[in-house]
Structures are given as structure tokens and as C-alpha cells.
């Protein structure tokens, strides 16, 4: 469903994403892990068509996001990590606007808006301007907007940031059900417990390159990590700071 071919992104001489190739099949929840600045967000934004790759291409359901953007993007729902939305629109208006961007209108959209607002417990806020929403409420609104046109795949950057435990749980259930019905989710996360519990497959990105990919067991096997936890595996692969060093720094 999502295919990255030799994807590279340079910012001047800095290589943010270095020749990444990846295939996320239909019906899979795929996790992108990596330390801060590894290139996860850049990769996801290239998949969403927001950034242009320096080299390589992104295919969504066979359509190239940059040469055939409209049909590729019709399949996609994107959820960014920073919830910037129009402050002077109400929640319901924002969702109607997004539906319009995907060419949808009428009663079907109104019903879908009501349904999504109900699921995310935003119904009582639907006629309130977004400027009055909390960070978490904005995040819920953006998640609703990504689902409004019933996409085939969802690309989501740090989905749990700002969500209360109930909403986080709800989102996990939504993603699992979405994947169960043949949808595809590609998400980046720092929360390794979330990745371990939710993802069918993972890729660990370091310095713009994929250093490990597959199911958690595959990755353990590839790197001879025995039955190490995902956290230990992650720290091993990304050169994480030793706990002892951390304790020394914090103890000062």
C-alpha cells in the first residue's frame, strides 16, 4: 500500500533521509521508531506530499505522490505531530472544510462529522471556535479530519502526544479496527510500549537510514538480541546513553 523507493532528502549538505526503501503492505500497522532528529517526521511528511524528496519516490496504492498527487492523496489521511488548525473555524466547520477538500459534501458528510465528534467526545464543542480548544482536543479534531473521507491508509506522526489516556486507548482501538478492515497505518512514535503493543512491523531509523526492519521478533533475531525488550533493542541499535551516565548527570 505504501512503498518508498530510495527516498532521500537533503537540507543543503545535511542528509535528513538517506536512501530509504520500505514497503508497508495493506492491512498492516507499521511503526517507525528512532531517536529525535533521526528523519522520521521528514519521511512521513514526504509520504504525505508536504515535502518533496531530493531523490526517490513515494507510492500510495501504486500512485506516485509527487507525479500523480491527487489520486494518491485521495487514499491518504495524514495526522501531523503539531495540531495547527484554523483558529477561527468551529470544529464542525473545520471537518466540513476538510471533507470538501476531498470532494465530499451533503448529508453523508454531516452524518460522518456527527459520528466522529461523538466518538472523540467533541460533540458539545462542535460549534465552538477551535481557538478555545485544548491541545488534546485539537489533536482529536485533526484525527477526526484524517478519518472523515474514509482513507485507505493513515500516516500519523506521534499519535499519542497530547491525548488523555482514554483518548489514547480509543485511538489504539480505532487503528487496530482500521487495520483489521484492510486499512494501512504508518506511524512514528517515541513510545516503545505503544509500538510493541500495537505494531505488526517496525522500522528503526537512525541518521536518516533504516537500521532494522520487520516484526519485533525478526529484528531481535537479525541482531541476535535474544529475548531483549524493544527498549533494550532500540537503545542497542541507536547507541542510547548508558543508564549509568544518565544517573551521573541527574545526580549532580
Amino acid at each position, binding site marked *: 500500500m505504501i512503498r518508498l523507493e530510495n527516498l532521500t532528502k537533503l537540507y543543503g549538505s545535511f542528509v535528513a533521509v538517506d536512501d530509504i526503501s520500505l514497503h508497508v503492505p495493506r492491512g498492516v500497522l507499521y511503526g517507525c521508531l528512532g531517536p529525535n532528529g533521526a528523519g522520521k517526521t521528514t519521511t512521513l511528511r514526504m509520504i504525505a506530499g508536504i515535502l518533496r524528496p531530493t531523490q526517490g519516490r513515494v507510492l500510495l496504492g501504486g500512485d506516485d505522490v509527487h507525479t500523480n498527487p491527487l489520486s494518491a492523496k485521495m487514499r491518504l489521511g495524514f495526522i501531523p505531530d503539531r495540531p495547527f488548525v484554523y483558529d477561527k473555524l468551529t470544529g464542525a466547520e473545520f471537518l466540513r472544510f476538510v471533507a470538501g477538500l*476531498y470532494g465530499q459534501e451533503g448529508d453523508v458528510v454531516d452524518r460522518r462529522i456527527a459520528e466522529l465528534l461523538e466518538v472523540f467526545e467533541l460533540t458539545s464543542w462542535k460549534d465552538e471556535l477551535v481557538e478555545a480548544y485544548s491541545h488534546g482536543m485539537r489533536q482529536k479534531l485533526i484525527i477526526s479530519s484524517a478519518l472523515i473521507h474514509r482513507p485507505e491508509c493513515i500516516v500519523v506522526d506521534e499519535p499519542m502526544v497530547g491525548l488523555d489516556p482514554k483518548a489514547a486507548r480509543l485511538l489504539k482501538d480505532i487503528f487496530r479496527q482500521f487495520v483489521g478492515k484492510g486499512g494501512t497505518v504508518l506511524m512514528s512514535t517515541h513510545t516503545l510500549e505503544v509500538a510493541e503493543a500495537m505494531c505488526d512491523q517496525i522500522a528503526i531509523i537512525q541518521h536518516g537510514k533504516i537500521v532494522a526492519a520487520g516484526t519485533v521478533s525478526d529484528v531481535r533475531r537479525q541482531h541476535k538480541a535474544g529475548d531483549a525488550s524493544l527498549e533494550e533493542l532500540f537503545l542497542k541499535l541507536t547507541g542510547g546513553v548508558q543508564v549509568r551516565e544518565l544517573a551521573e548527570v541527574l545526580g549532580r
Partner: protein
Amino acid sequence: MKQPSLAHVLQPKWRTALQRLREERANGGSGKLVVLALVGGAFWVGVFGVLYRILKALRAVEELGPLIPGKILGLILLSFISILVLSNVITALSSFFLAKDLDLLVSAPVDWLRLYLAKLGETLLHSSWMVALMAVPILTAYGVVFKGGVLFGAYAILAIVPMLILPAVLGSAVTLILVNIFPARRTRDLLSIIALGAAGGVILLFRLIRPEQLARPEGFRNLLDFVILLRGPTSPFLPSEWASQAIMGYLRHEIDLLPLILLWTTAAAFVTGGALLHRVLYPTGFTKAQEGAERFIRGTLWRWTVGSMLGWLPVAKREFVLKDIKLFFRDTTQWSQLILLAVLVVVYLFNIQALPLHRGEPVGFFYVNLVSFLNLGLAGFVLASIAARFIFPAVSLEGRQMWLLRSSPLDLRALLWSKYWVGTVPLLVLGLLLTGLTNALLQVTPFMMLLSLATMAALTLAIGAMALAFGALYPQFETENAAQIPTSFGGLVFMMATIALLAAVLGALASAVTTYVRAAWEGSPVGVTPAMLGWFVAAAALCATATIVPLRLALRKMESFEF
């Protein structure tokens, strides 16, 4: 605990400014600096030149000597202070209550006085830099004409600086009190309306008292009345009057330190008073500023009215247009500028109506046509200024939401199309109204009316396209305040490009209009000659090029945006 120095508190601000400069230079911004320096230099030279000639002529008048220049300086400084108070009130709201760095500063162990002084300094700088720059050629002209010498510059700075501090303290204090009464977001709405309403009122009042009548010699009964009027101060309690007295005293070589002392002691007293007020009211005000504006809006009115009218459009375009209209009318800082616009239109029409053209002399016909023709340029300039304010920022304002637009299947052409027509249609209506009404007031012939309306329509389409395109070519995605976007470098380039277009189009049409006026003047039959037709086609081609090429460039630029 040792408090951080004021310079340390302000460090992020000046470091950011320095970094922006470095980035500009790295991105080949030296060209921009050269253009800015050239335009700024030309402006300074222009202001200096005009004032120099006026002061030189006035100085030569016996009896009156430096009286009139002193009066003029007092009026200039008074207008500066009025502008400064208004702009400080608005700027203080951003810097004291809405700025992004406040959470950090307020949560850090920085004492109230440092916070006050840092934010006061920021307010002063943001609201006064333009007035301070404007004062340079004016004071230079005074210094040169009255032979102030090398030290005059330093003395003038000594007189002007406290005059800038006073409105900053006053503006901040007014804002502080208002925020304590209303929530900050409401206050911003209120302030925008009050400030623009007040500015509009002042302009209207000033125009309606017809100051040009004062310049008529028959208006004064005798010279003595005039001199008595000039000798009296505008008001002994106004800091602008003290600054004017200080400067003129120095230039007359009769140095009187009292005005300077008054200025500095009042400034010191104001800062002290402002700081004490800040200490008492700021914590409550800052807390109130965190409160969101709770407003329930159904928005069905827009859907029924505009939405139904746009029913023929594809859904994506329709929703986009609706969204833009809603955002405009829900943002008080945006729509409130329409008040000022309405006032300016009234003043504009009033000026045309006040022109002494129809007095029965035969020369009237020539002047009517000349004014009607030149009015195209003036109206074009007014439209360009409005486009700079409302259309130029359109692309920049989408910046933070661009993730949504770029990740959705919205064709960028549709986005550009919506932005273009949402901005250009009202501009077109205004342009045609301005031209039609002024021509009706001037009682022009049907030929001139038709020519003016057609030219204005073509110019407006081009101006709208150029505003949108320059806004896309020089976007300001990170700005916190939409009002600052038009004053950016891109805004300046847009205004320069528009002036060039106006000059080119009017230049092309001038020959055709001259042929017509000459024929009509001589009483010969007026027909459209091939030469005239050629000029019309040239003007139309210019406008069409200025519409299509910028829109294409804007599209290409928007396709290359990365976020």
C-alpha cells in the same frame, strides 16, 4: 538570588534578529538589502528635499522667520505622538500578553521590574522604529536650513527619545488596564476597532475642516493675527511641544534646557508610574490573558447565503472560499480595517468633489479629463495598498495549515483560484465604484467614463494577481501578526512593481487620451484611430501579462513550498 540582566532577558530577541539577518545574507539577501537601502534612501531624500525647500522659503520670510517652521515641527511631532500612542497600545498587547516567550519569562525567576522594562523596550522598538526613521530626514532638513551644526543630531536625539518613551509607557498602561477589565483576546478585538475607528475619525475630521482654506491669503484679516496665532504654543502640556521648543531653541541659538528637563523628568516619572502599575496589575492581567474567548458559532448564515450563491462551484473550491470569508469576518483585526478603508474612500471622494474644476472657465474641460485620467493612477495606488493589506498576506496566512492543504488532494490551482477571486472581487467592486463615482463627480464624457472603467477593471485584475503572487514569492509563514506581513520586504517589492505597472499602463494610454482631448477641445469629430487602438491593445496586453505571469509564478512557487 542574582537577577539576570536586562540584556540577558532580551537576548532571544536580538539573537533571533541577528540570525534572520545572517539567513537573509546566506540566501542571497544582499540584493534585498540593496533594494531596501535604495528605496529607503530615495524616500529620505524625497522627504528631506521637499521639507528643505519649504523651510528655506519660509525662513526667508521676514517677521515670521522661524515661527512657521517651529509651528510645523510642533504639528509633525504632535502627529507622531498620536500615531505612537495608538500603535503602542496595540503593540503592548502582543508583547506583554500574547507573545510566545511569556510563558518562559513569567515561569522563570525574573523579577517584575526586569520583565516590565524588557517588554516596554520591545514595545517601544516595535511601535516606534518607523516614526524614528521618518524623523531623520525631517530633523536633518531643520538642521541644515537653520545651520544646526554637527552637534544638532545628538541634541535632537536627546529631545526625541523621551518623546518616544512617553507614548510607549502610556500605551502599555492603557493596555494593562484594558486587559484587566476584558480578557486579552477580547481586548485585542476591542482595541483594533477603537484604534482604527479613532484613526479614521481623526482623518475624517482633519479632512472635513478643509485645511486648504487656511492657506488662502484672504482667510486672514491681517498679518498680526497670523503672527499671534503662530507665537502661541499648541498646548503647553504636550511633550511634542516641549520637544519642538527644545529643538527650535537650539536652532535659534537660544538654548533653553527647561523643555529637555521637562521631557526627561516626565519620561522618568512615567516609567516609574508604569512600572508600579505593572507590579500591581500585571499578574491578574496575564492570568486573564490566558482565558480563551468562548464563543459558540453555528456559521449556518454563511452557508445559506454565500454557500448557496457559490453552489455552482466544485465542493473543494466552494469550501475554500467559504472558509476564507469566515476567517476574515471572524478576525476583528482583519475586518476592522474596513472601517479605515471606508473613511479613506469618503475622504477620497470628498477631495475630488472639493476640486475647484467647474467654475465655468473653458479650461475646465481640459482639467476634468486630466484629473479623471490621473485619478486612474491614484485609484490604482489606493487599490494596490488595499491589496497589499488584504491579498498579499493570503498565502502566508495559510502557512501553519499548509500540512493539511498539501496532504489533501486539493489542487494548488484551486487554492490559488479561490484566494485570487476572494481577494479580487471586492477589490474590483471598490475600484469600479471609486472610478465611476469620481468620474460622475467630475462630470466626464462617456468616452472617458468607459475608458476609465475598462482600465480600472483590467488594472484591478492585475493588481490582485500581483499581490497574491508576491505574497507567495515572499511568504512570511512564521509571523505572529498578520498586520506585519504587508510591511515586509515582499510587500515593498509588490508596491514598487505595482507602481511600475500603473506608470506603464497610464503611459500607454496617455497618447490615446491626449488625441481624444485635443480633438474634443478643437471641436473636431472624435473617433478611435488605429493609433489609439494600438495603445489600448498595448495597455490591455500589459494588464493581461501582469495578471497571468504572476499567477503562474505563484503556482510554481507554491508547488515548491516545503514545511
